């Protein structure tokens, strides 16, 4: 199986879906001539031309809405935001148009659209450029939200997102684009709504998604080496719909859980996961579920402060030790 970067896996998914369906087009800032702010769309303008790879002005609200309108009239737009920080300007179109049109029209207007781009912090970009938006987006009925952690999942989930007849939010990561992994060639789709056990274990479940999958996997290694603890790493992959069965099955096995996410703690994804666990696996729990999140502050610029604000393997290990009553 070929090894690809996360960036190239997304590029492959876009290329294959654009080859497969002439109504799929890519629109966003710098997607064409510049080849993508993060080079995800490299080569697509040359292959598909300016009708299908459309550069936009810096007008997130406007081009997100153009995408939704195009979807109403039968196209399958992929809207790229340079980052999700800027997509906040487009929330009216995502929340009020894309997510609601099917319902308020009594089922007449499905909106097959993908909104994608990097989410969460990179390195020292400051408060406005270092935010994780998944809990905001996952709150909205009518949207689907996916957050792939590996190149293979990135390809498979983006292909599923493009084929889905609903608005799908694809959360990528600046720090993930260069990561490498094996990616199946050709037709490879990952169903939306299915979590994936990235490492099997017996003693504690680490529930994570996107960039925190790597954090949890490192923590699991440390736990194995330092404590002889066998941690299971469950990658949610989809945040809406959430794979409640996978969460429950793992916790029923390990009886302990730590939820790791890049977002802020208040009303975060972890809060929703904890709700699932207390509802569906209450009798299996041997300890309260703990969460590791970004610190409840705007992201600082200073490198040391930023490191302190982010989830880290050490923080996950510390939380796991607590739910295992090792401290």
């Amino acid at each position, binding site marked *: 199986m070929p090894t690809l970067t996360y960036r190239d896996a997304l590029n492959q998914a876009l290329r294959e879906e654009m080859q497969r369906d002439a*109504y799929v*087009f890519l629109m966003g800032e710098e997607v064409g001539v510049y080849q993508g702010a993060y080079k995800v769309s490299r080569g697509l303008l040359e292959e598909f031309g300016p*009708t299908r790879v*459309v550069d*936009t*002005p810096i*007008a997130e*609200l*406007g*081009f*997100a*809405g*153009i*995408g*939704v*309108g*195009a*979807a*109403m*009239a*039968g*196209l399958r737009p992929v809207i790229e935001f340079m980052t999700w920080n800027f997509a906040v300007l487009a929330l*009216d*179109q995502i929340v*009020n*148009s894309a997510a609601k*049109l*099917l*319902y*308020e*029209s*009594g*089922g*007449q*207007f*499905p909106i*097959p659209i993908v909104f994608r781009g990097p989410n969460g912090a990179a390195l020292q970009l400051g408060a406005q450029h270092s935010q994780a938006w998944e809990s905001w987006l996952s709150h909205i*009925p*009518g949207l*689907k939200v996916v957050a792939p952690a590996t190149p293979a999942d990135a390809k498979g989930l983006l292909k599923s997102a493009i084929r889905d*007849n*609903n608005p799908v939010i694809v959360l990528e990561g600046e720090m993930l684009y260069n990561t490498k992994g094996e990616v199946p060639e050709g037709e490879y789709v990952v169903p939306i709504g299915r979590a994936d056990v990235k490492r099997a274990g017996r003693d504690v479940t680490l529930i994570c998604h996107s960039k925190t999958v790597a954090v949890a996997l490192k923590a699991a290694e440390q736990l194995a080496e330092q404590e002889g603890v066998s941690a299971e790493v469950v990658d949610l992959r989809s945040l809406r719909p959430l794979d409640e069965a996978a969460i429950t099955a793992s916790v029923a096995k390990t009886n302990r859980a730590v939820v790791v996410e890049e977002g802020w703690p208040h009303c975060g994804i972890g809060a929703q996961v904890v709700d699932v666990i207390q509802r569906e696996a209450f009798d299996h729990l041997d300890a309260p579920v703990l969460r590791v999140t970004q610190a409840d502050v705007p992201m600082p610029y200073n490198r040391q402060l930023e490191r302190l604000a982010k989830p880290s393997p050490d923080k996950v290990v510390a939380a796991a030790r607590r739910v295992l009553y090792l401290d």
Partner: protein
Amino acid sequence: MTTATAHAPKDQSQAELERRMLRQMLLIRHFEEKAAEAYALGKIGGFCHLYIGQEAVAVGSLAALRDDDYVISSYREHGQALVRGISAGAVMAELFGKATGCSKGKGGSMHLFDAEKRFMGGHGIVGGHVPLGAGIGFAIKYKGGNQVCICYFGEAAVNIGAFHETLNMASVYHLPVIFCCENNRYGMGTAFERVAAVTDVAEHACSYDMAAEFVNGMDALAVYAATQRAVERARKGGHPTLLEVRTYRFMGHSMSDPLHGVYRTKDEVEEQKKRDPISQLALKLKEDGALDQAGLDALDAEVRAEVEEAVKFADASPDPDPGELTTHVVAD
């Protein structure tokens, strides 16, 4: 009378068009009057924005469109929905929240839809649907069609960023869209000149290198002619147009708002009513000898009966099944 004979076909079709427009305006007027009554009786809930006074805009502009063109509007869209051919019964039933409504009772007054008639809604956020109109134009162009999309919004939407972002992109991408601003002078209770630095909406088109026209919105034929020019521009070259159609609403902003309110005088409203688009067109048809008083009365009675039927239909229709609560959240 050879001259008259030679002109007869054209005159006849023109008179027919004008009679059809008059009928459509009467339908909207009486429909909205009944909606106000039903609202007072508690049969319609939530917000309900009436179109009384603005009838010539929907009627004149939509007469210039083909059936395969697209229409998208704001929350003051009962008029456009009716003219587009959604039955008065289906629109009234939607206002009543019934299962037989054009959005199955799940949209309401502000969210009327009919995919077959290419009526793309009824949208509730001021200016939020303006980019959607451009997106529909984008899809038309992408597929190589020669349809157009007409997008209606009030003058208050002109102060929203989405309006400016959209006009810019519609012009850059050469989209076949007619942006039809219904300038009724008040955004809810705020006079446009109190909150807009540029009060001639059409002037905004200059910023986006777009064609524009000021139109008398109380004259259905003037609106028709201006829209025809905009349609031609869109069909032939994919050029968008901004129409500023100057109109006036005789009723409040919504049903929660008194007729005149504190933001305008009764005298102003009464003065504007002298420009009533329905009486103006009826007078023209009479002067042209195309319609007499008996004919007008018959037309009026016919339309009133249609609206009565619509109310009966809405009243008799069932509520949506409770199971409808959770349908249409996501598509298959």
